[in-house]
């Protein structure tokens, strides 16, 4: 068919088959193209995966290097914990630059060990293309020097389950973890071509997951607390205090036991105290030590045996009761307990003081005071008072104005009594008075003066010329008028009338000034008696008549007032007080006035009455006892304050002022005497209690100062020990504490802070020996791990059969008897190991993991890297001196060691064997 025919072909058949074939071909080509495109895309995506291979290699390598550093760090801390250096050798490389700082020394040692271990890992795992990942290797260069490693400390604070009431440990927190930063140089190599792609310096920082720093800090703290005036001293004091009381009071009441503190019991107390503080610091105690302590306690105190299976823990702790142990130690715990309870009711009261002041004799303090008060009250000052009103009248002298001459008044022309003055009730006031008119007259000459004038000649001097013509003076006469005075005189009579009130005045009565010792002021008053110049009927223990000061009035009136009355009336110039006289019951005659004989008896009666009331009412607060006040001087001070408070509370009743005084005036002079005596006596009792008890306290303190080298510490230890004893004691085993992350200042991070975290801490303790014995030497070295010395210095050489120091012996009976014991302790733990029971971080080939430990024992430490010695580990040693006290009531034999050890000037001394070896 030609083209033309194709055009002319109008049948228009569509060649579908042809189209179909075309479509098929096109789809095949399109499919191939699409698939190729897909493959290329897929290849491009998979290349991304290949690109990430070196990143992965580096990522994995760094992660694993951090683990290797952690393993190296843990290995170092394991070594440090097992062989710590306490005294570094200052010649080794780790000591340089530390200036003796043991923490820096430890850091240097750790860095060296980390480097040593890390280089082993690097050698085996990160060199010679050993670490190969996905065709790339990562190699690291070993560290040349350990001082490129940095160590940073992480601190935490422990929240303990068991906390002591005093001297709480760890208030500033502890170093707990170390974080290390290690600089490394790494090389990334493509293995197929052997090309190094990159070499870079990196720093890897990781936490060393072993809590060596915490164990070290806790053990160091324990090492401090077992020495000197510190926690274990307080705890030992608490234990021994219980013994002293139980045995001492029993000895006081029943004369047994003969030895209050002996070394057998003391070793029990020491071991208990060491374990107790272990429990406070670590919240965990060596379990075998718990068993041994229980076993020894049972054997020594009760003669019984104890099996391992009989140890019962209560909530993870063994409860111990030193007080019950002390009762048991006496051999009769029931009696000992009764005696201890009785001693708590020891009533230190005011009886010794009231007996001291008022012993019934005429020379007693009270009696003497009564004698001194009476004359003050029975005294008065009387005076004659003259009040003069004068009227003078001149005789008539009209025309004669000038007074020329006056005669004296002379004796009165007349004196007439015109009235009396009523007695006044108040002082100062008039007791008696008279009113007189006294009249005088006198002559009086008057004159009248006048002037008379007349002519008279006088001369005068005038200037003139002399004979020689020179100027001169001449005398000439002249006539003038002169005058002269002349008078007339007359005589008249003047009159003077004095109206005189003459009184017998009481100026002052009963002026008293009685010093009050307790108040620190004086009872001063005067003129405060109702009608003191009259006799009065009074009733005290019986009815009496009190003459008061009447005698003084009578004497004065007759001897002075009446005797001098005329003189005083006539004395024109006298207006005021005159003829003052003082009368009292201790003035010599004629000024002596008597006091009523019954008065001293009544005053004494009042004193006796108050004494009886005080002795009945005032008793010591039962809470003031040896348990709450273990130091006898503190006990006395507390007793003092309590007694004074109670007397002061009842003072108004004892003084009974209303019976004698209405608020302004005493009802009589005798009432004033008795009231003042009462006031003085109550005040004096308080004062003497204060003074004597304070003296007693000072005496005890002085005795302690003489017998202890550091008495303040011993006293404080006793105070703290009493608080500890009151709280209950536990020996815990593996109690869990909680550690909280803190900042450098020791503040716990708040919960919302990023740095906040907390974790559990449970520790175990292992000590050697389990029980420190003063009698049996330990180990190959035959070391005495405990040395004890106790003495009873308040019992010197038994100069009398009395034991102890009487306090305030001048009083009868004295206040109390005081005893003291000194306890001297030295010892050491042959081995002391703490392990972290809550973070067993070190791999163990059989048990999976083992705990980080910290061990203190005598050991020469060698550096495992160099083999050279680097210092010494030391065992934990302890030493301190403490003491106990006891106060027993007076009388009986007192209290003290009556046997045990050897006698010295410091009383009985008992010493364990180990002292000779030092």
């Amino acid at each position, binding site marked *: 068919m030609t083209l033309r025919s194709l055009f002319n072909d*109008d*049948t228009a*058949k*569509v060649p*579908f088959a042809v189209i*179909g074939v075309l479509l*098929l071909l*096109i*789809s*095949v080509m*399109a*499919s191939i193209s*699409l*698939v190729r495109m*897909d493959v290329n*895309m*897929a290849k491009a*995506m*998979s290349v991304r*995966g290949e690109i*990430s291979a070196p990143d*992965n290699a580096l990522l*994995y390598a760094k*992660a*694993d290097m*951090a*683990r*290797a550093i952690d393993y190296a760090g843990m290995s170092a801390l394991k070594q440090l914990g097992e062989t710590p250096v306490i005294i570094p050798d200052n010649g080794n490389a780790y000591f340089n630059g530390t200036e003796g700082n043991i923490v820096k020394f430890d850091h240097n040692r750790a860095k060296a060990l980390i480097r040593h*271990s890390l280089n*082993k*890992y690097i*050698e*085996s*795992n990160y*060199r*010679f293309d*050993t670490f190969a990942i996905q065709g790339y290797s990562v190699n690291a260069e070993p560290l040349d020097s350990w001082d490129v490693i940095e160590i940073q400390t992480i601190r935490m604070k422990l929240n303990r389950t068991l906390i002591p009431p005093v001297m709480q440990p760890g208030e500033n927190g502890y170093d707990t973890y170390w974080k290390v930063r290690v600089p490394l140089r790494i090389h990334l190599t493509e293995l197929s071509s052997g090309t190094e792609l990159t070499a870079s310096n990196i720093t890897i920082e990781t936490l060393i*997951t072993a809590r060596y720093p915490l164990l070290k800090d806790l053990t160091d703290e324990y090492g401090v607390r077992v020495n000197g005036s510190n926690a274990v001293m307080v705890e030992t004091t608490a234990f021994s205090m219980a013994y002293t009381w139980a045995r001492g009071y029993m000895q006081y009441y029943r004369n047994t036991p003969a030895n209050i503190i002996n070394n057998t019991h003391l070793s029990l107390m020491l071991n208990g105290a060491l374990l107790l503080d272990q429990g406070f610091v670590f919240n965990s105690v060596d*379990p075998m030590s*718990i*068993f041994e302590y229980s076993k020894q306690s049972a054997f020594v105190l009760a003669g019984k045996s104890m099996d*391992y*299976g009989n*140890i019962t*823990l209560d909530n993870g702790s063994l409860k111990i009761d030193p007080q019950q142990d002390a009762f048991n130690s006496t051999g009769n715990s029931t009696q000992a307990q009764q005696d201890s309870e009785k001693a708590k009711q020891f009533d230190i009261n005011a009886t010794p003081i009231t007996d001291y002041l008022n012993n019934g004799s005429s020379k007693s303090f009270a009696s003497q005071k009564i004698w001194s008060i009476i004359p003050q009250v029975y005294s008065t000052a009387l005076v004659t008072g003259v009040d003069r009103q004068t009227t003078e009248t001149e005789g008539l002298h009209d025309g004669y104005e000038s007074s020329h001459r006056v005669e004296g008044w002379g004796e009165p022309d007349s004196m007439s009594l015109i009235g009396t003055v009523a007695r006044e009730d108040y002082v100062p006031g008039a007791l008696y008075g008279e009113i007189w008119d006294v009249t005088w007259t006198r002559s009086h000459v008057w004159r009248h003066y006048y002037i008379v004038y007349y002519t008279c000649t006088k001369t005068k001097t005038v200037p003139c010329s002399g004979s020689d013509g020179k100027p001169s003076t001449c005398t000439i006469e002249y006539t003038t008028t002169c005058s002269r005075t002349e008078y007339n005189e007359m005589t008249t009579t003047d009159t003077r009338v004095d109206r005189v009130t003459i009184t017998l005045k009481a100026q002052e009565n009963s002026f008293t000034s009685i010093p009050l010792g307790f108040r620190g002021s004086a009872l001063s008053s005067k003129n405060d008696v109702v009608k003191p110049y009259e006799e009065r009927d009074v009733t005290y223990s019986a009815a009496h008549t009190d003459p008061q000061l009447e005698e003084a009035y009578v004497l004065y009136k007759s001897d002075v007032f009446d005797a001098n009355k005329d003189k005083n009336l006539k004395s024109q110039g006298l207006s005021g007080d005159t003829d003052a006289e003082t009368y009292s019951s201790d003035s010599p005659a004629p000024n002596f006035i008597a006091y009523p004989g019954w008065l001293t008896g009544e005053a004494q009666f009042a004193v006796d009455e108050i004494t009886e009331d005080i002795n009945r009412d005032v008793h010591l607060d039962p809470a003031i006892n040896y348990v709450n006040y273990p130091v006898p001087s503190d006990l006395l001070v507390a007793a003092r304050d309590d007694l004074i408070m109670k007397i002061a509370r009842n003072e108004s009743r004892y003084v009974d002022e209303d019976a004698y005084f209405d608020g302004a005036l005493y009802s009589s002079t005798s009432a004033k005497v008795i009231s003042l005596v009462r006031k003085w006596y109550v005040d004096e009792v308080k004062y003497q209690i204060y003074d004597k008890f304070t003296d007693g306290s000072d005496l005890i303190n002085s005795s302690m100062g003489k017998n202890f080298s550091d008495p303040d510490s011993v006293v404080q230890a006793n105070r703290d020990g009493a608080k500890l004893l009151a709280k209950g004691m536990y020996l815990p*085993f593996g109690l869990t504490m909680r550690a909280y992350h803190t900042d450098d200042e020791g503040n716990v991070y708040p919960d919302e802070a990023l740095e906040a975290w907390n974790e559990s801490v*449970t520790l175990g303790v292992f000590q050697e020996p389990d029980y420190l014995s003063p009698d049996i030497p330990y180990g190959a070295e035959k070391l005495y791990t405990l040395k004890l010395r106790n003495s009873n210095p308040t019992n010197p050489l038994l100069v009398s059969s009395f034991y102890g120091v009487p306090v305030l012996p001048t009083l009868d009976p004295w206040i109390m008897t005081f005893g003291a014991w000194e306890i001297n302790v030295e010892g050491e733990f042959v081995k002391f*190991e703490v392990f972290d*029971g*809550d973070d*067993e*971080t070190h*791999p*163990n*080939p*059989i*048990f*999976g*993991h083992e*705990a980080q430990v910290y061990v203190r024992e005598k050991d020469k430490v060698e550096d495992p890297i160099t083999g050279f010695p680097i210092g010494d580990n030391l065992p934990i040693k302890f030493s301190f001196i403490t003491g106990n006290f006891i106060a027993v009531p007076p009388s009986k034999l007192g209290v003290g060691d009556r046997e045990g050890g050897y006698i010295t000037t410091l009383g009985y001394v008992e010493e364990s064997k180990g002292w000779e070896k030092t």
Partner: protein
Amino acid sequence: MKRQVSRVSFCSDTRGFSTTIDVLIFLVLISIASVILLPTITGNIQVRSVMDSKSQSESSRMLATILNGRMDEFEYAVAGEELDAIAGTANDSSLYLAGKKLILGRELKHRTFADIAAEDAAAQWVIYHNGERIQLNFLLTNYTNGLESAMKKYLDSQIADRYSYNLTVVWRPVVNAPVGSDVRIGERVPGNAYVETSHIAMPYDLDFSRARVEMIVDDNFNTTWGNISSTFSYLKNGTGNRTQIEDEITQEIFDSINSTTDAAVDDLMDNTLVPVIDEAQDTVTGQINNLLPGNGTELINSINGTIIDILEDEGIIVNESVSDTFKSYLKGYAKEETRRISDSEIRAMATELSDMYVNDVMTIEDVKESIYTEVFSRISINRAEVTLSIWERRG
């Protein structure tokens, strides 16, 4: 002459229609074309490729988190029943019970997943005997179970919604020595898993350095013609029997490998098992002795006894201490296996080194380097291999 165009109506004009067969063929071809195009149009190659990359990244990321991620606390207990048996009548006393929990309870703080897995592997002491896996340390069941549980919990929380997984840690301290361990967590790995592998450090930092290996090789390599240098020099000068020389080189390489294996086994045992099993010198024994006097050693003896029983059950004769028995067994077995597995390989290596040295392609230092590398590569006491495999879940 003009053709006459007949006028026909459009609808009835059938002249443009194809024949039926034409249409049928067309339809068939269309279908074939669509069959060809359809797979490429849906285009899942890229998607699969993206998914592959992503899954591989995911595996890599997860492995990185396992190496870096830490658990705040991980707990397990060990040897509780054994100690109860030894404690006897004391095993219900409160002191004992509190002490047992403290001493035998284990708690790890702030450790990475890799640490926990590696330390489990380090304490299993598995021997691969007669095709069986025999774990000598029977005390670690609780540890392994705890690890499995913790890892499962972690991986489930991270990827289990989409992937299944398997985490394996394998430790072979000495190649061909039938001792090591393995920790396997998860399902069996299918063929299409995405796998990431890394090395992890093991907790025993034994000092088995390359330098030590070189020293062993130098001490042991002693043919008829002397050390490596002199032997290859003799080979080079062509006077000797090449085959004989190569045989001796092969034998010396084997001897070096065997000596290195022996030294590695001794080091491994002496630094790990011996102090614990034979000498009862570790901290745990001391702590148990403090809780129950003398019973720490008794526990070790009990563990020893059980391990001996296990060995004897497998036909391994125990004449000396457990560790010495172990050493003898491992060394003997390793020698046999090395010869059996690596014979041809070492021979080929000897031949290749000879050829290359003779033809001056390698220097004598290169030859030594190759021998050292070959020997050193058989020791991996301080590292294990961790492998994470993930694959997509179906259904």
